């Protein structure tokens, strides 16, 4: 055998589409049998074996026109590759989610598998096509190798529908999942599910220490004469008749008692009425809010605000923006107070409109760790120009879930505040900077209850020394959040 012939022979043995060597004894009956097998295999979508059979049919009887035609069709026409999970994953990694879904749909028809059902279900969930996703995920849930992942996404669908009970059931079933990432995600989602509902009640009860209750000027952090113990409680109720997307009403109130310095005891009450569009990563909301702040049980500041906010996903990041207009009305201290906090003229001077905005980019490094970078801008248009200012600066936040129950969060913020006009009483134009930051640890006692401890510090620096101060507040307590259908 010559070298070219040997090469041809080898190629024909490997590739059924390669040219066939002449010389095999013509056998129409065998060729017909191969042709039948080729057709049967092709009808099953097994193109590789179909090609092999057609090639053998042609080799057995080169004059068999049907076999030649079938082989030519399968070899010459680049038939679309048979659907496979790998092909779908390849399309997905190339960013072609629609084509990946088409492949998975064909795969489901030809050779259904739990892995393909899981992937197709997840893709449909991501496209918010829950009706299509759910039966696929149910199918994947039936297979032990994909059951846990399917449960997670079935729980997410239930959560999105507002069916907190079903979501809780799915997430609880993952508490002993072998996969640590799944276990951790389920634990986080379990807390989230417990906090979902048409009515969500939450509250805190805390006690602690404030190193500088009346923001006494100074540079000594812990030796201020205004240091005192504190105790506080807060409650809020969020009512969302249509769950995530739709109208909402938020009512909240709280009080922080400082028995040693009651004039600086802080009370607040607020209500917000708004509407949210969307319930996924892409969402927006608008709301009206009314806040009342009281100092020492006397009304101090009343704020009407209009807010719009929205968030969009961008790859693994989430971009968030908020714009607001705040109409702030300071309330003079009543005449019964011996040393008023605000006189009528001061209150009028501080009052005014304050437009503000902030933009945030959140990056999730892993299910357990995310960080946020923020920039805030605020323009205070107070009644008197000496109290008006422009404030801006960056901030960072991070949260890390160390275990399914213990999490740490930290935040820091830097702001510069430049006032518009000289203050005749101070004989200068104020320029302040504020730095604050802290740490908070939270330990989940149950899906609804948590124990927390936090340490927060503030440093205000001003070109007016009497307005510079340091303050450290440490608190510990319990928090509670529960959703009701």
């Amino acid at each position: 055998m010559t070298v070219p012939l040997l090469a041809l022979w080898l190629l024909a043995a490997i590739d059924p589409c390669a040219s066939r060597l002449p010389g095999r004894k013509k056998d129409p009956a065998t060729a017909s049998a191969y042709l039948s097998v080729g057709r049967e295999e092709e009808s099953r979508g097994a193109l590789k074996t179909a090609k092999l059979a057609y090639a053998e049919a042609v080799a057995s009887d080169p004059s068999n026109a049907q076999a030649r035609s079938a082989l030519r069709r399968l070899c010459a026409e680049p038939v679309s590759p048979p659907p496979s999970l790998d092909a779908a994953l390849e399309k997905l990694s190339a960013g072609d989610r629609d084509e990946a879904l088409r492949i998975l749909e064909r795969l489901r028809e030809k050779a259904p598998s739990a892995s393909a059902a899981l992937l197709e279900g997840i893709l449909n969930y991501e496209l918010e096509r829950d009706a299509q996703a759910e039966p696929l995920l149910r199918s994947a849930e039936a297979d032990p190798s994909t059951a846990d992942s399917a449960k997670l996404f079935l729980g997410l669908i239930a959560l999105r529908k507002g069916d907190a009970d079903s979501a809780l059931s799915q997430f609880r079933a993952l508490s002993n999942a072998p996969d640590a990432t799944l276990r951790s995600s389920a634990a986080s989602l379990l807390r989230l599910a417990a906090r979902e509902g048409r009515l969500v009640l939450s509250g805190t009860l805390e006690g602690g220490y404030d190193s500088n209750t009346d923001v006494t000027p100074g540079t000594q952090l812990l030796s201020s004469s205004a240091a005192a113990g504190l105790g506080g409680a807060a409650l809020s109720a969020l009512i969302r008749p249509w769950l995530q997307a739709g109208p909402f009403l938020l009512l909240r109130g709280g009080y922080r008692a400082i028995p040693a310095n009651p004039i600086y005891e802080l009370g607040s009450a607020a209500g917000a009425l708004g509407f949210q569009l969307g319930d996924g990563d892409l969402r927006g909301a608008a709301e009206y809010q009314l806040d009342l702040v009281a100092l020492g049980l006397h009304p101090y500041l009343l704020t009407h605000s209009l807010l719009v906010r929205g968030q969009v996903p961008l790859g693994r990041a989430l971009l968030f923006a908020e714009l607001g207009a705040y109409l702030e009305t300071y309330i003079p201290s009543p005449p019964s107070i011996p040393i008023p906090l605000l006189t009528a003229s001061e209150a009028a001077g501080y009052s005014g409109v304050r437009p503000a905005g902030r933009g945030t980019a959140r990056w999730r490094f892993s299910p357990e760790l995310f960080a946020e970078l923020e920039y805030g801008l605020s323009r205070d248009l107070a009644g008197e120009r000496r109290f008006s200012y422009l404030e801006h600066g960056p901030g960072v936040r991070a949260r890390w879930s160390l275990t399914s129950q213990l999490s740490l969060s930290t935040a820091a913020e830097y702001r510069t505040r430049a006032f518009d006009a000289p203050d005749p009483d101070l004989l200068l134009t104020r320029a302040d900077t504020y730095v604050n930051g802290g740490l908070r640890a939270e330990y989940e006692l149950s899906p609804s209850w948590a124990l927390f401890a936090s340490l927060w510090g503030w440093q205000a620096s001003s070109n007016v020394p009497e307005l510079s101060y340091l303050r450290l507040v440490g608190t510990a307590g319990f928090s509670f959040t529960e959703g009701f259908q």
Partner: protein
Amino acid sequence: VAYGGIAAAILCLAGAALGSADLDRRLASGASHFRAGRFDRALVEFKVARQLGARGDVTWYIAAALTKLQRPEDALEAFATAEAEAPDSGDTLLAYYRAIACHDAQLLVCADRILAEVSADAGPKIRSQAEKIRSQLAPLLGPEPPPSAIDALLSRGETALKHQRPTLAALYFREAHALSSRRSDRHRAGEADSRLKAAAVDVAQRSPRR
């Protein structure tokens, strides 16, 4: 599990049982490909042998090749045909392949049942493999199966019926019924039973003996 067992059996069959030289050639060629791990070529040769008139034993080998090609649903249909045509021709190695096909098609009760039979009869190598798989299945089959598993099997059975594959549908309905009987509420047991009977009637109507 080595492929040599099946290949040797086929070669023996080709040499002794079949008279036709062409059938012998096809079966010997299929056995050779199977032994070499070229399961696609083996499948074609076995199927051609069947086209040329071979029955019974060759269908077992078609089923084995389909199992190796990871076409479990096609394999299970072929095993059912083989069992109907040549019930005495199966052996523990082929039963092991059938269990693998059940496993790959997510018919875990089916896989476990066949592997239990294989463990009792097979030699040490296959027995060890079978017991290993059964130990992996045990925790999955131990607790009460979730209703969603039964729902999914019934759904697959209906899909198989829609595609004119009643034998496969019957396997899914039987598995659904087996899982349902393990639940205290016997979730959709009646439905699984009635669908199984309907699929069995369909299988009987398609049987060549009618």
